[in-house]
């Protein structure tokens, strides 16, 4: 029983953390959306990436690419817009993921892990992960493609596919939702047994 109390306290702490993440995602999604509108209204000529001796880019988070030759001034607006739109979509998906997760943690804290709504929450999270498995790599590829095109970086192309980790996680969450739906039925049977 002591372990269960510790477990509930942990769930309570995590619930607060996830709620903070949720609101942070909402705020960041909003800021990115506003930034998109703001950048869209700014003339392209105002957002210039000037000539530089070298520019260090990380195109995929792993490989760093140095542009050693001086660049002629180029408008960075398309790249910024792509980054902001992708980020806005990404943070929105994160917010949609954190909200049901916070709900689940709250029910665990209240000692009702098999509440009826948790199966629906897990289903929602699974669907969001499946959508994210397509959108995540697409957004990243779009940003990289914009950078390559805008900066005219030679001999680099973009390749993208499904995010397998997110795809598998999404499928597992959908299976878990089915397990929790059965658990909810069993809980209901126990609760209505005297």
């Amino acid at each position, binding site marked *: 029983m002591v372990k269960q109390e510790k477990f509930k306290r942990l769930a309570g702490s995590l619930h607060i953390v996830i709620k903070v993440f949720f609101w942070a995602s909402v705020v960041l999604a909003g800021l990115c959306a506003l930034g998109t509108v703001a950048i869209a209204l700014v003339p392209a000529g105002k957002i210039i990436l000037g000539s530089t001796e070298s520019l260090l880019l990380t195109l995929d988070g792993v490989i760093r690419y140095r542009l050693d030759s001086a660049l002629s001034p180029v408008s960075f607006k398309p790249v910024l817009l792509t980054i902001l739109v992708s980020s806005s979509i990404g943070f929105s998906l994160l917010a949609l993921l954190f909200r049901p997760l916070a709900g689940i943690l709250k029910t665990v804290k209240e000692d009702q892990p098999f509440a009826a709504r948790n199966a629906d929450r897990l289903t929602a999270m699974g669907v969001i992960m499946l959508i994210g498995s397509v959108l995540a790599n697409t957004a990243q590829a779009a940003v990289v493609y914009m950078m390559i095109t805008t900066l005219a970086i030679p001999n680099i192309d973009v390749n993208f596919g499904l995010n397998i980790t997110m795809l598998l996680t999404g499928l597992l969450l959908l299976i878990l939702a089915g397990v929790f739906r059965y658990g909810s039925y069993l809980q209901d049977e126990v609760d209505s047994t*005297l």
Partner: protein
Amino acid sequence: MPIITRLDRMLADRKMPLNELADKVCISVVNLSNLKTGKVKAIRFSTLEAICKALACQPGDILEFQEDDAK
């Protein structure tokens, strides 16, 4: 539901209020009330034993089977 409880009848016969029975069988008044009004889906033998002991009766005095009218 075909199985109905006659708990209210037994309580009246024994002149026992519901909360007294709840104390004797260590079940909340809410749950006993649910049993009385037929909102309970199942009852454990241990609970039935405790109620029968408290009311000095047989299970058949509390539970009754009635065929569904729809059938």
